[in-house]
């Protein structure tokens, strides 16, 4: 197939990739190995998951979309205001194009970088180019390879030594072309003793034709640095989303992942904290709400490579209608990781008889002096709770809402950002009203 430079839509082929490179949209630096990534993509089969059937996902059905689409009004409004109290910076990408990247000038003056990952990686010697692909390798699976071959735009966030950013950096990935494929890509580097909070939201309008989003996020947390990565997965309910996120956590450093898993018709996520240096720690928080026919497959890995590393995971999910969730939470403790502590708890509440949840926590422990525990529960909403609340005048719907809010409460309390709590509560309300 030949491709003209004005074409917006192109199959996910090698020709398309060549065209992207020719147009300067995908930098062809050999370190990025676009061609190698494509080869890995072409060679790999779709991942085979035990509880999520990907056989009906045909990647050939989707075409690459580069040009920016129409942003929703609230996001457009956000791009027009520069409220540095509210946020340290704002990055918005629509389809394959960055439409807004802005950083508090005071932070820019201190060496913070927020901007295009493509531009940051055009020279091989750049910080970004050196680290890109070092945390999530292109050839890990078919979807990471696909992203690594085709991503354009992309966010690069760099926080230098000793710089602590108070307000969150807001990141939006938007997609709006039915049948289109988008490839969000993020690289965050927090140097020694730096601190930053990223609030990423992925959005697309609701529609009938599926849309594919395959994203890769790499986070490098330097010694004693603190990164909080909040990810609100709010893709429209026609989206098929593959998410790969990994943090390499340095000595005495900490990564907090906070997930709001709300959107997409089919989602597979893989989130890992690699605790590769002494004293590294991770907290993983997640709330998930499935409705309609949504299918969320969540895989988490707290990977204890070094001694004295800590992990703490708390996920809670609510399912209504015919929604389905799979939660696989793995705690892995390597032979060298003595004195690791790791805890994992996952609870799911079912609001309907047709909803189904599988929760599979597991431990792989190869060190002998560790503390680790995991627990998972799946329970149906208790009719006696509803009745009790009803006898106080709450309708069944109000009672259900109170129970759901109460169920999520322990996690909401640990999500300290009020704006995020509000966003999540709004989403729960929307889901309960639907």
């Amino acid at each position: 197939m030949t491709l003209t430079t004005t074409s917006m839509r192109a199959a996910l082929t090698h020709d398309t990739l060549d065209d992207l490179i020719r147009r300067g949209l995908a930098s062809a630096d050999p370190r990025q190995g676009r061609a190698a990534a494509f080869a890995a993509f072409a060679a790999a089969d779709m991942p085979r998951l035990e509880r999520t059937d990907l056989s009906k996902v045909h990647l050939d059905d989707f075409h690459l979309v580069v040009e920016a689409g129409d942003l929703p009004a609230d996001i457009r409004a956000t791009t027009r205001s520069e409220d540095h109290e509210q946020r340290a910076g704002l990055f918005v990408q629509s389809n394959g194009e960055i439409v807004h990247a802005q950083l508090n000038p005071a932070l820019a003056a201190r060496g913070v970088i927020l901007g295009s990952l493509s531009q940051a990686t055009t020279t091989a010697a750049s910080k970004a180019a050196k680290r890109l692909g070092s945390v999530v390798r292109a050839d890990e699976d078919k979807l990471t390879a696909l992203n690594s071959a085709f991503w354009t735009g992309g966010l690069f966030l760099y926080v230098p030594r000793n710089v602590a950013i108070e307000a969150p950096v807001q990141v939006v990935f938007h997609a709006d072309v039915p049948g289109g494929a988008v490839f969000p890509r993020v690289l965050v580097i927090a140097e020694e003793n730096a601190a930053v909070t990223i609030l990423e939201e992925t959005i697309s309008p609701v529609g009938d034709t599926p849309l594919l989003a395959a994203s890769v996020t790499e986070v490098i947390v330097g010694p004693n640095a603190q990164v909080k990565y909040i990810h609100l997965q709010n893709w429209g309910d026609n989206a098929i989303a593959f998410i790969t996120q990994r943090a390499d956590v340095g000595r005495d450093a900490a990564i907090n992942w906070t997930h709001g898993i709300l959107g997409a018709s089919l989602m597979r996520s893989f989130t890992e904290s690699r605790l590769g240096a002494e004293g590294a720690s991770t907290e993983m928080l997640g709330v998930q709400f499935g409705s309609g026919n949504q299918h969320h497959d969540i895989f988490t890995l707290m990977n204890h490579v070094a001694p004295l590393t800590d992990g703490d995971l708390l996920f809670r999910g609510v399912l209504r209608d015919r929604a389905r969730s799979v939660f696989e939470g793995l705690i892995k403790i390597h032979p060298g990781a003595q004195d690791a502590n790791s805890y994992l708890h996952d609870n799911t509440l079912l609001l309907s008889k047709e909803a189904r949840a599988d929760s599979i926590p597991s431990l792989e422990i190869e060190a002998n002096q560790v503390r680790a525990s995991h627990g998972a529960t799946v329970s149906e909403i208790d009719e006696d709770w509803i009745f009790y609340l009803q006898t106080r005048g709450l309708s069944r719907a109000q009672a259900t809402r109170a129970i759901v809010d109460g169920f999520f409460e322990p996690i909401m309390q640990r999500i300290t950002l009020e704006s995020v709590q509000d966003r999540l509560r709004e989403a729960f309300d929307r889901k309960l009203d639907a």
Partner: protein
Amino acid sequence: MSNDLDIRNLHVSIEGKPILKGLDLTVEQGRIHALMGPNGSGKSTLAYTLMGHPAYDVDEGEVWFQGENILELAPDDRSKLGLFLAFQYPVTIPGVSVANFLRLAMNARQTDGKKIAIPAFRKLMLDKMKLLDMDPSFAGRYLNEGFSGGEKKRAEILQMAVLNPTIAILDETDSGLDIDALKIVANGVNTLMNPDMGILVITHYQRLLNYIKPDVTHVMLDGRIVMTGGPELAEELEAQGYDWVRQQVGLAEPVIDVELVEE
């Protein structure tokens, strides 16, 4: 339209097993009725049925309140009509604080769709907590989670105080209360009691009735009211036990209703 609660020939079964077998009882506004009866006689079944618990099947009978046969109504509509039950076994609702829950309950019964202002609500709640000698820190605790038996019962009466029902059913509110707490809770109930309110007190023990003085006492056996009398009936019962009642009403024969005319 009457604010009395009027139960007529109520037959109720659970999973096909008959529990209430033709029960008649009227709780009038301004009066306190005591309901006593051996374990398993159906007292809680009556209470749950009046509130509309889905597990209890009404096979026959009517319950009239505020001009409606309320058996057709959902539990929340019964509550909004002014019916209240203090549970024998209150339910724990994880993650929902007492204050939040009370506010939801109050907002649910605002007829104009407006929400009660937070300061007004706080004041009301704290006043009622004071009435029941509850520490204000209770407001922030999750409803009944980790509450002691006595604390749960107190929290039930707190809800009654905030919701101010027309007819309140107290199902063994005295069980789990120590003697000091019993006095406080009873005193709270007496303070809430007014000419527009009727109360049905379900209990096994005279000690509660020493503080909450009933106008009428009923004895329930095997799903029916078999005896009705004044406050002295409760004392008699405590002294003589239920075998005495069985003898009075004829043990081997089908139970007879003893109609007592009230003044």
